[in-house]
């Protein structure tokens, strides 16, 4: 933060001049929200960190460091030198710090606005500072996008798409016989994904930016950072769902194959600084999103948060530990935003609450498919945690071995099936809808460097994209945006295997040159040296890669990923792993605890996460778009810009 600037107002300047020397350690503003380069670096120039759609609500907040033993007794926010009407709540947050907040502010005048705070200490001294934000207006003209569909392949960089195309597209003689559904979308852009506090984002700010148009710190959903440990009191930014529900009467749908409390789905409806606060996040879906954002479809895993604590499998917790995650909101926040204060209730039956509100509840695919076409509210919770991975769900449907948690949850829907039901329910609203569909395990399996599983999850995701494109064709007032929240694992296709699968299997069981299954770094006298068997003369590069061929069956997935001369994937954001290039029989086994018989160890470059997981990267990600207003999504842009171009289509219209 920059040093406290000169006081902004003449009257205050005179007051400051009268302050005795003992008050040189004057109170100071240490944080000002919305965040800005003007406040942090005294830089008034673009890019403007915080931007809002006209009339989009957000909180004004400041943290003020008082003199030792002193108290901040009041404050006033100004925008363009005009006092902002409303109550400024002053909350002591420890260490002689105080948080000043004015909730649910909105500005309808497009352009860059300077704002400031003046805080008064109990001895009369004052602190002030300034920042800025931009309000983005929308040009009227053309036809409006009635429906907005975000499809987010979590962690899906450009190579994830390429790999899925190689598996499904029959690439030979330099061309793909058939592309992905994503490939058929007419507009392509490139997104920068940095978060407010890192070049490398996590899924929370990486997804929330599409819903709010703003950056936040890693782990945060729909809020700006503050200086309290409270997960629920951060300055908020209104989500697209509630903004368009309030202004246009749209409804909201959220579909994922992760736990519904996971970062990406929650980033479209929830406001918290803790992406892991499952109990409160799911409570907030009901307490706020159903009423404020017209949430009508919620599907995925995460049933644990909806079950009273006494039911086996429940994950609901109270707030008696640091991990506790139910909530009560500050009174000023609840009043200004018009939402319930929440409740500490680990025994809440959230499924019952949704059913009472008119939702049809589906615990499995069979029930989901049986929901009558007339229903417009669906709650689908197909797993207690994350849903199983496409490969393992498909294996169960084919009658192959059930692995992972498939034996416990054998009847999970595929993402395209969930998409069909969501589109049918949401499209009943004549004012249109916002729908977010996430392919979550592309990221999760990329983290685990489980190539075959993230490839098939990308295929599953692409099939959901195909369903949305079909809907778009019959509903041309629909905007479809397909992108990611970030790249995961530094993935790329480095070549193709030079040997048959049978040969690969044989080599995967042989030790390296010394015939001993070694350990890393020779700590016990033997090293891993399987590279002589599994790298040299196996990894074909350039023309030796050839064109790996996969056999796609009627269910849309390959009969096997272990074909002769298969595609070879490398990981630049890798953790430690043993590699034998073969499909791992079990999901979610650590990379350094599987495939060891081949004795080929690849040391990770990414620290953290036990050194056994790959990490997100800061790489730009691709965006594909189609339908009403999609022509605007070209060029290289910041990820927050997607929100504003979508709002142009929904509010201003597109030619």
């Amino acid at each position: 933060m920059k040093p406290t600037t000169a006081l902004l107002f003449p009257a205050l300047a005179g007051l400051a001049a009268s302050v005795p020397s003992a008050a040189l350690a004057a109170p100071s503003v240490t944080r000002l929200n919305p965040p800005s380069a003007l406040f942090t670096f005294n830089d008034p120039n673009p890019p403007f960190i915080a931007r809002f759609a006209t009339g989009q609500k957000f909180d004004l907040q400041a943290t003020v460091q008082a003199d030792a033993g002193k108290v901040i007794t009041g404050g006033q926010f100004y925008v363009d030198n005009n006092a902002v009407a409303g109550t400024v709540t002053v909350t002591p947050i420890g260490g002689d710090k105080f948080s000043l907040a004015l909730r649910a502010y909105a500005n309808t005048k497009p352009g860059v606005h300077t704002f400031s705070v003046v805080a008064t200490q109990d001895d009369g001294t004052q602190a002030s500072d300034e920042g800025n934000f931009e309000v983005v207006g929308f040009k009227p003209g053309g036809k409006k996008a009635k429906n907005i569909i975000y499809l987010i392949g979590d962690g899906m960089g450009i190579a994830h798409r390429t790999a899925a195309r190689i598996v499904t597209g029959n690439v030979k003689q330099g061309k793909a016989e058939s592309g992905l559904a994503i490939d058929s979308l007419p507009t392509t852009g490139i997104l920068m994904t940095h978060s407010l506090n890192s070049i490398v984002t996590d899924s929370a700010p990486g997804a929330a930016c599409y819903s709010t148009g703003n950056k936040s710190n890693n782990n945060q959903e729909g809020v700006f950072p503050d200086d309290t440990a409270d997960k629920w009191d951060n300055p908020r930014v209104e989500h697209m769902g509630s903004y368009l529900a309030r202004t246009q009467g749209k409804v909201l749908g959220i579909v994922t194959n992760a736990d519904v409390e996971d970062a990406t789905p929650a980033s479209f409806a929830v406001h918290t600084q803790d992406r892991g606060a499952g109990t409160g996040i799911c409570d907030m879906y009901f307490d706020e999103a159903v009423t404020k954002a017209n949430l009508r479809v919620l599907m995925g895993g995460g049933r644990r948060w909806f079950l009273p604590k006494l039911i086996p499998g429940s994950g609901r917790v109270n707030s008696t530990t640091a991990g506790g995650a139910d909530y009560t909101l500050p009174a000023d926040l609840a009043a200004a935003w018009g939402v319930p204060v929440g409740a500490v209730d680990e025994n809440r039956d959230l499924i019952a609450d949704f059913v009472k509100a008119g939702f049809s509840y589906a615990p499995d695919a069979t029930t989901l498919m049986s929901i009558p076409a007339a229903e417009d509210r669906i709650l689908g919770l197909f797993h207690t945690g994350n849903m199983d991975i496409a490969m393992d769900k498909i294996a169960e449907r084919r009658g192959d071995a059930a692995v992972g948690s498939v034996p416990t949850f054998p009847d999970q829907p595929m993402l395209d099936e969930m998409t069909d039901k969501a589109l049918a329910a949401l499209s009943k609203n004549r004012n249109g809808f916002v729908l977010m569909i996430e392919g979550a395990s592309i990221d999760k399996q990329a983290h685990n460097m489980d190539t075959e599983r993230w490839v098939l999850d990308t295929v599953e995701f692409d099939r959901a994209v195909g369903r949305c494109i079909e809907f778009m064709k019959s509903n041309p007032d629909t905007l479809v945006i397909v992108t990611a929240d970030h790249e995961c694992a530094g993935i790329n296709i480095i070549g193709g295997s030079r040997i048959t699968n049978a040969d690969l299997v044989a080599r995967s069981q042989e030790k390296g040159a010394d015939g001993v299954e070694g350990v890393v770094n020779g700590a016990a006298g033997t090293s891993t040296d399987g590279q002589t068997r599994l790298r040299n003369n196996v990894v074909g590069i350039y023309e030796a890669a050839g064109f790996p061929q996969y056999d796609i069956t009627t269910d849309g997935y390959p009969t096997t990923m272990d074909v002769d001369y298969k595609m070879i994937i490398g990981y630049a954001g890798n953790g430690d792993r043993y590699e034998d290039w073969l499909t791992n029989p079990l999901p979610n086994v650590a990379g350094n605890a599987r495939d060891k018989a081949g004795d080929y160890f690849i040391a990770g470059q990414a620290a953290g996460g036990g050194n056994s997981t790959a990490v997100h990267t800061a790489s730009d990600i691709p965006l594909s778009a189609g339908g009403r207003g999609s022509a605007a999504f070209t060029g290289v842009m910041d990820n927050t810009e997607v929100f504003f171009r979508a709002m142009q289509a929904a509010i201003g219209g597109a030619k």
Partner: protein
Amino acid sequence: MRRAARPVETRLVRPTATIRVMSTSLAPLISFVPLAVLAAVAWKAVHPTPLDPSAGPVSVAEVSGAAGEDESVPPPAAPAVSDDVRAGYAELQMDSIFVKPAGPRGLEYTVEASALDGARVRLRGWMVRHLHDDPRIFLLNTQPMVLHMSEYGLADDLPPSAAHVILEDRPGWAPVWTPRPLEVCGVLELGPRQERDGRVSHVRLLADQVIDSGSGARADIVKPIGLQPARLKAAVLSKDVGADPASPSAPTFPSSTNPTK
């Protein structure tokens, strides 16, 4: 919930060497020095580790936490656990704890598991590679697994049947993570309990002993957790995501539900 009295006569896991040293030379200090510190000092006296400068050059694998390190540094010799001891515990398959498939709402304990609630049982599985906020606890799963709280928080793939293994008497001590399967003997406890990391456990084993299934030897209490780089590397790194440590409402222990990625 039923809970049987713990069978003291079968608690073979107590680190006998450690206790022996403590009982003779260090016992007078017990009331003044934290037990874990004493235990660490005593343990190191009889089992110098590669991290002890007096033990010679430090193993690269030990310091780096690289894969395979735990196989490269054999645990101190421990007596094999006899079949007679095992016989005192009913075998329960982890796959048999909950009814499959799950019903439309929650899960349901099997008749077999319910009958063993509070009884002495044996579970076989793999230690999940992660660090629990509660140093008494590690997770036992039906298959090898890595759990990255730092990546996902509680939106994870951990099956409901994963057991919280509680080493109640020795906070701060636990077996090192190993890729090999383990056999854990103890008292089974079913039912919800909120754990320190925000997770709700439904299957707990109050462990009497942890056995390396490969060697049949006792596998517990080989290191204080503070000297386990393999486990610690999987831990959440404490990171401020907006919390003010000076705030009176700030937690006094690390929260792993503020993931750093």
